C-alpha cells in the first residue's frame, strides 16, 4: 500500500507494529523481509518515487576537514535511496574486519563474521547476484581460465568481488512493496522529530513533515532508523527536546567515527609478459566477478596497517582519468554528469617491450576516528530540521597503510619476477602528512552510530538496538565499528536481515 503523505489531512495519526524510517537498501530490505507477516509495517520515505530537487535539498550541509563531496548529493533522497545510482559492487567482509587490532584504535566488534555469514546469501538475493559464493575456487570452477597471480597467498591473495546488475531498489522493489498488504509505504514523510516516554527509555512516536505543509504522527511498537549514516546521526542528534544531547547520545558517540573507504590511485604495476590478468579485469556491465589484490591478515598485523584491496586497470585507460572528487557535479544526475568528465580515449603510452602497465587503485578502510564526525548546524532546512555538518578527518595510519599495501604487492610481484610497482608521488615521502587533491571516498558512509556491548563505548548494542531505549533500532552501515576493506552495501543488507530476524522474534514475543 502506498500513501503520499502530502495528500491526507494535516495532523494525521499513522499506527503500525513496526516503523521503518528510510526506504533505501536497508529500509527496503527490511520491509521485504516483513511481507506476508501478520504485522503492520510503516515504511517512511522522505522523498517520492522520482528525484525531487526540493526534497534532495534537505540533505544539503556544510563539510570541513578533508575535502569531500557536497553533502546534498552524497545520498539520493527518494524511494530506493542511493541504489538509484550505485555501481553494484559487492564483496564480503573478512574475519579480521571484526577483530580487535591493537594497531587500530577503537577497532573490534562485539560480534564476528560468523554472526553475519548466515545472512549474506539472503542479502545476495536482494542485489541479484544469486547464490554464488565469494571464493576464488568457486569462480575457477565456473571459469577455468581465471588464474590468480602466482603470489604467496599468505601474503597477497585474490579477493573476489561480484557485481550486481546493479539492482536499483526503487525500481526493482516498488511494485512488491506497494502491493504488499501489510506494508504501508508513506512517501514525502520526512522524520523531523522522535518523541520518547518521560524517562526516554521508549520511543512513542515520530513526527513526519513535508513541503506541502503536512505534519503527521507515526506510532509503532518498534522503530528502525534506516536513513544512512549521515541522516541516522542527524535525526538522533536533532531529537534533543527530551534528551538534551540527542537520543542515544548520553556518552557523546552519536555522529562520531564517520568513516569512508579511501578510494585512490596509489601506484602503477609494470608486469612482464606473459602475465595473465583476466581474473583481475572488469568490463562494466558484463563481468560477473573479478578479483582484487588483498593483503593477508598476518601481514596486516606485521605491518600494522588497515585492510584494503587494490584493483588493476590498464594504465593507458586509467592514467589520464580524473578522480570523482575532482569532477563531481552536484545536483540531479550527479553521477551521469560527473562521468561525462572522464576521458574516452586511451592515453598514448610507450611501454618497454614485453611489459604491460596497470594502475593499482586501492580501496581501504578508514580507521575509526572520534574527530571525524557528523554534527548539527545552527542552520535549519525547509522542514525545520537542523542541517547536518560533516568534518571528515584522516590520519597518518591511512597514509602509511596505503603505502604498505602497495609495498607488499610490489614485494610479491618482485619476488616472483612478474614485475615492479611504482608508487605515485604523494606516497614517496614517509614524513609527508598531506593528501593529494584526488583523495576521495566511495560514497560509503559508516560508523556514526557505532556498535558496542558497552553503552559507554557505542550507540547501539550487538542487535543494533540503541542503548537505553527499548524499542529504537538502527539499520545500516552507521552501526559499523570498522569499515572493512570492501564496499558496505551487501554487508549492511545482511546486517539488516539479521536485525529483521531479531525483531520478528521480539515482536512475536511482545504481541503474542
Amino acid at each position, binding site marked *: 500500500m502506498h500513501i503520499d503523505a502530502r495528500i491526507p489531512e494535516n495532523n494525521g495519526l499513522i499506527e503500525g507494529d513496526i516503523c521503518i524510517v528510510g526506504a533505501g537498501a536497508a529500509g527496503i530490505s527490511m520491509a521485504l523481509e516483513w511481507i506476508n507477516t501478520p504485522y503492520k509495517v510503516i515504511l517512511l520515505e522522505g522523498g517520492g518515487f522520482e528525484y525531487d530537487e526540493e526534497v534532495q535539498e534537505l540533505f544539503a550541509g556544510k563539510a570541513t576537514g578533508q575535502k569531500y563531496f557536497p553533502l546534498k548529493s552524497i545520498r539520493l533522497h527518494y524511494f530506493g535511496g542511493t541504489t538509484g545510482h550505485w555501481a553494484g559492487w559487492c564483496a564480503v567482509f573478512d574475519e579480521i574486519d571484526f577483530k580487535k587490532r591493537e594497531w587500530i584504535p577503537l577497532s573490534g566488534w562485539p560480534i564476528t563474521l560468523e554472526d553475519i555469514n548466515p545472512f549474506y546469501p539472503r542479502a545476495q538475493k536482494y542485489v541479484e547476484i544469486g547464490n554464488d559464493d565469494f571464493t576464488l575456487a568457486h569462480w575457477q570452477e565456473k571459469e577455468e581460465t581465471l588464474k590468480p597471480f602466482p603470489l604467496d597467498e599468505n601474503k597477497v591473495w585474490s579477493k573476489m568481488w561480484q557485481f550486481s546488475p546493479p539492482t536499483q531498489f526503487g525500481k526493482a522493489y516498488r511494485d512488491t512493496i506497494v502491493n504488499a498488504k501489510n506494508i504501508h509505504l508513506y512517501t514525502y514523510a520526512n522524520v523531523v522529530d522522535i518523541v520518547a516516554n518521560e524517562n526516554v527509555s521508549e520511543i512513542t512516536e515520530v513526527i513526519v513533515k513535508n513541503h506541502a505543509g503536512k505534519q503527521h504522527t507515526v506510532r509503532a511498537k518498534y522503530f528502525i532508523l534506516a536513513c544512512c549514516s549521515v541522516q541516522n546521526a542527524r535525526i538522533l542528534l536533532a531529537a534533543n527536546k527530551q534528551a538534551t544531547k540527542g537520543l542515544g547520545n548520553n556518552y557523546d558517540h552519536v555522529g562520531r567515527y564517520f568513516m569512508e573507504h579511501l578510494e585512490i590511485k596509489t*601506484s*602503477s604495476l*609494470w608486469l*612482464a609478459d606473459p602475465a595473465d590478468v583476466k581474473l583481475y579485469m572488469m568490463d562494466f556491465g558484463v563481468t560477473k566477478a573479478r578479483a582484487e589484490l588483498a593483503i593477508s591478515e598476518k601481514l596486516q598485523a606485521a605491518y600494522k596497517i588497515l585492510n584494503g584491496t587494490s584493483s588493476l586497470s590498464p*594504465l593507458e585507460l586509467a*592514467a*589520464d582519468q580524473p578522480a570523482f572528487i575532482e569532477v563531481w557535479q552536484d545536483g540531479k544526475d550527479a553521477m551521469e554528469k560527473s562521468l561525462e568528465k572522464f576521458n574516452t580515449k586511451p*592515453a598514448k*603510452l*610507450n*611501454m*618497454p*617491450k*614485453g*611489459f604491460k*602497465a596497470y594502475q593499482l587503485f586501492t580501496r581501504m578502510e578508514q580507521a575509526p576516528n572520534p574527530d571525524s564526525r557528523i554534527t548539527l548546524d545552527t542552520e535549519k532546512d525547509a522542514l525545520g530540521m537542523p542541517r547536518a555538518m560533516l568534518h571528515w578527518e584522516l590520519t597518518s595510519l591511512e597514509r602509511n597503510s596505503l603505502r604498505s599495501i*602497495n*609495498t607488499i604487492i*610490489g*614485494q*610479491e610481484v*618482485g*619476488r616472483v*619476477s612478474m*614485475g*615492479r*610497482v*611504482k*608508487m*605515485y*608521488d604523494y*606516497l*614517496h615521502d614517509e614524513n609527508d602528512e598531506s593528501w593529494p587533491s584526488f583523495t576521495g571516498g566511495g560514497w560509503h558512509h559508516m560508523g556514526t552510530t557505532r556498535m558496542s556491548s558497552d553503552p559507554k563505548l557505542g550507540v547501539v548494542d550487538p542487535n543494533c538496538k540503541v542503548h537505553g531505549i527499548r524499542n529504537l533500532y538502527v539499520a545500516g552501515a552507521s552501526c559499523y565499528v570498522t569499515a572493512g576493506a570492501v564496499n558496505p552495501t551487501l554487508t549492511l543488507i545482511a546486517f539488516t536481515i539479521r536485525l529483521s530476524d531479531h525483531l520478528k522474534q521480539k515482536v512475536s514475543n511482545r504481541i503474542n
Partner: protein
Amino acid sequence: MKRKDFLQLSAFTAAAISVPLLHACNAPVSENAMAHPVFLSRLFDEETIRDVGKAYLQKTPAENDDTKLIQLLAGNSAIADSSEEKAIHQYLEEKIEQDFEKGNTIMVKGWVLAVTEARQCALFSLINS
C-alpha cells in the same frame, strides 16, 4: 605514475631495449655484471638505471663507493671474483628474490625495489658517471 613521468620514461624506453647495457664501460667483467640488474634492465633504460642508482646513493650515502657496493652485493660469497657473467647474474637474481621475500626493499624514485637491485643501479651509476 604521472603523465610527465610516463613521457620521461617512454623517451628512454626505445633505447633501453636495443642498446646493450654497460657497453662503454672499462670496468672488469665481474663489476660490469654486478652493475647490471637483469630484470630492471628490461624495464629501464640506462639513464633511468643511473638516476635510480643516484637516488639510492642519496638515500644511503654510506654506500657511495663502488668497492663498498661490490662487497655488499657479493656478501660472504666469492662471486665478485667470478669471471662468469651468468653465474654472477644468477647469484644476484637469487639475492633479489630473497630481498623481496624478506621485505628487504627500498622505495627509490617511487619504485619498490629489492635492495640488491637498487645497489646494482647505484654501482652502475658510479662506474658510468
